[in-house]
């Protein structure tokens, strides 16, 4: 009976994924992609992966969604601006998009169809490996937290998580590499708007409090550093959209410290354990819970700052297309 929900959700997700690739207009693609994210989040919920659902909602739908929407300022002819050359070229292109996918790519389609059949058989016949539930359950009391997913992320597989914080920082550096070198771009002051200011005033504390709640709640239930970081990062993005910048007003060294404190603290702590004869990221059992909370808080601050800076850089890219070499 409850399988009905899953079947419907699955069909919906597949339909939305297909449509977001086939839709003739970019803006429709992006909106269907949001819808796809929501369908996926419901699927996570049905599979009992609430942490993943929050992450999906926060990063994959929320943050990435804002980036996609912002990118539409560059690309999309769907808004009623008078387009010059690109429009004609683009219209041809979008027309080709649907057709080329469906008709002129028959070999590709056949290949993918065959591949799909093999893939379906492979996932269907996957033997039961048993997973690591039992192992995680056995060691959970020693991990310092009560929520198994947080225990895996911050203790059992802390190394992956540490690298992942590094990946976000690297994503920011990579974006600097694309669009000239600046730590933080000034927001566009013309964007100030009274209505917006009201919304921002209302939502800043909400985002902050809810983020802090998720961070702290991660110890016992679904939540944690990444989800909290997106909510805190959303504050920075909101302020940037409203023409205000908190990061711009603090000195450079502090800015860099905020961006790097998460990965640095995590690593230096790990090195200290190594110096003490333990392995990297091997917390003393008695302090594990406290250390994990500190690491998560600092990581959330760093990630939030990095996400804000990523958005700000992408958002302001348009304003100075020729500036490539300003040195940080």
């Amino acid at each position, binding site marked *: 009976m409850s399988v009905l929900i899953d079947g419907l959700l699955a069909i919906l997700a597949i339909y939305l994924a297909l449509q977001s690739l086939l839709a003739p207009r970019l803006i429709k693609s992006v909106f269907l992609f949001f819808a796809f994210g929501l369908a996926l989040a419901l699927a996570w919920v049905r599979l009992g992966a609430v942490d993943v659902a929050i992450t999906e909602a926060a990063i994959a739908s929320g943050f990435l969604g804002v980036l996609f929407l912002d990118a539409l300022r560059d690309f999309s002819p769907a808004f009623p601006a008078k387009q010059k050359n690109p429009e004609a070229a683009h219209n041809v292109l979008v027309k080709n998009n649907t057709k080329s996918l469906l008709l002129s790519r028959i070999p590709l389609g056949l290949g993918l169809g065959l591949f799909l059949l*093999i*893939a379906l*058989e*492979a*996932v269907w*016949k*996957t*033997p*039961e*490996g*048993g*997973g*690591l539930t039992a*192992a*995680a359950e056995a*060691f959970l009391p020693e991990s310092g937290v009560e929520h198994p997913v947080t225990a895996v992320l911050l*203790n*059992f*597989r*802390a*190394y*992956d998580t540490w*690298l*992942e914080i*590094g*990946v976000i*920082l*690297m*994503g920011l*550096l*990579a974006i*600097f*590499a*694309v669009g*000239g*070198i600046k730590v933080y771009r000034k927001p566009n002051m013309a964007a100030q708007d009274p209505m917006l200011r009201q919304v921002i005033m209302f939502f800043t504390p909400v985002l902050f409090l809810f983020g802090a709640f998720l961070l702290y709640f991660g110890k016992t239930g679904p939540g944690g550093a990444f989800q909290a970081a997106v909510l805190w990062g959303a504050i920075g993005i909101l302020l940037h959209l409203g023409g205000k910048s908190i990061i711009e007003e603090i000195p450079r*060294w502090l800015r*860099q*410290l905020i*961006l*790097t404190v998460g*990965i*640095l603290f995590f*690593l*230096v702590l*790990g*090195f200290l354990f*190594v110096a003490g004869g*333990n*392995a*990297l*990221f*091997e*917390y003393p059992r008695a302090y594990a819970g406290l250390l994990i909370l500190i690491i998560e808080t600092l990581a959330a601050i760093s990630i939030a700052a990095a996400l804000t800076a990523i958005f700000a850089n992408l958002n302001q890219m348009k304003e100075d297309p020729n500036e*490539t*070499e300003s*040195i*940080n």
Partner: protein
Amino acid sequence: MTDLPTSPFPAFLVGLPVLLATLSLFFRARGKAVVGLAGSLLTGVMALFALFEVTRRGTVIHILGGWEPPLGILLRMDPLAAVFIGMTAVVGIFISLYAWRYFRAQEATTGGFPLFWPLWLFLWAGLNGLFLSNDLFNLFVTLEVIGISAVALAVLSGKKTALVAGLRYLLVAITGSMAYLFGVALIYGSTGTLDLGLLGQVLEPGTTTTFALLVITLGLMIKMAGFPFHFWLPPAHSSALAPVSALLSALVVKGAFYILLRLWMEVFGVSLTYAAGQLIGLAGAIAVIWGSWQAFMQTSLKLIVAHSSVAQLGYLLMIFPLLILAPGVTADSADWLSPAWTAGVYQVIAHAFAKASFFLSAGIIIMALGHDRIESLRDLVGHMRITALAIAIAGVSLIGLPPSGGFMAKWMLLKGIFLSGQWWWAPVVLTGSLLTAGYVFMLLRLAFAPAREKEAFRPVPRSLEVCALVLALGSFLIVLPADNLIQFLQSGEVFGTGIESIMEGGAHGND
């Protein structure tokens, strides 16, 4: 496995470059370069110390967080990983020195690209992490670290061609990683573990394993520009800055090859089939011929070198058909196994040195001439003797003439080919060498030809030329410790079990 000696080196090999990369962000342009260079030297020296430690103590491990697999992640530095890390260190040190001088020389016009340093250190951390990793998912994360930093380095010049090539490279890299990750998901689902050592014991052949092998191999072939997926490599490698091109072709593409080698030898032994090996070998063979031919047809130096990478990576794919044992053959009687995979390792090292040197020389020529069209290489010898020498030496190693590292690689490959009786690969190796000789001698002929008209060669810092020459010489020097190196590689205990698992695979096929 966890009774192996532990060592803190693996943790520092990944942690130190990240620490220094992060610290360099606190400095401005020049400071970034200073910290970056110091960090590169420090990382390189430490990597060599780690290599020494492995030669002394054998395989060492580091159990991250104190959690043993399958729940935790294990870093394992066995001889194979140590050799790759050592190679990265040597090549990395010289490219760093070159980059320091190269960017300094252009600081006034370009700003000196300070972001090169943190990105390169992150890339180095990712490479070390990849070589050390013993966990399928962690390998994915390191692949992504490498992918993002490599693309960021590739687009550093900000030029249009670099950006377009970089975006294609990035999309291809993401696709490759995701394909790999799909295979990982299926393997986790069917075994409940991600640890390579454990997987080698518990993975059973079946539809799911075969499919996982397929997507993982495809994903990694996409990342290492194996034949039908080679299209992204020449534009991305040729449009980057010279030190970056050297890093990309010498080190980055080798990461995916390393995983593929490890997985085929240690994990998938049981489900490999003769046909799969032949297919991947065929892809390699086509890459060798096609890449060499394309290189021959190019008119700019960097494009020649980039297409030559496609061909040289093809040789790496050609060792895979030799790693598969026909039913009924045991690993003991298969005396071609060890020449085959040591040929792969030698090819990786020789290519890393030679190609790095080639790209660094191309950078010197671009610096001197302002472009790299090959007709302007006339009378290169008269103007830049050292660079011409570096190109000649590196070229000889690429062709595979004795006594170069390239020769060692091809000789052992041929040995493996004939011992295994798969003689049909031999003409490909020889044709590839012939074509390589074609474009290398074309370059050298130009370099020695007298100038028709006076080309304006701007003066270039001598230290740059020396870096290129040292790397070129390196591709010859690696032949000297060949016996020791091969012995060292084969002393890897875990790799030994890999061969055993292949043996079991043969037995399975026999049943």
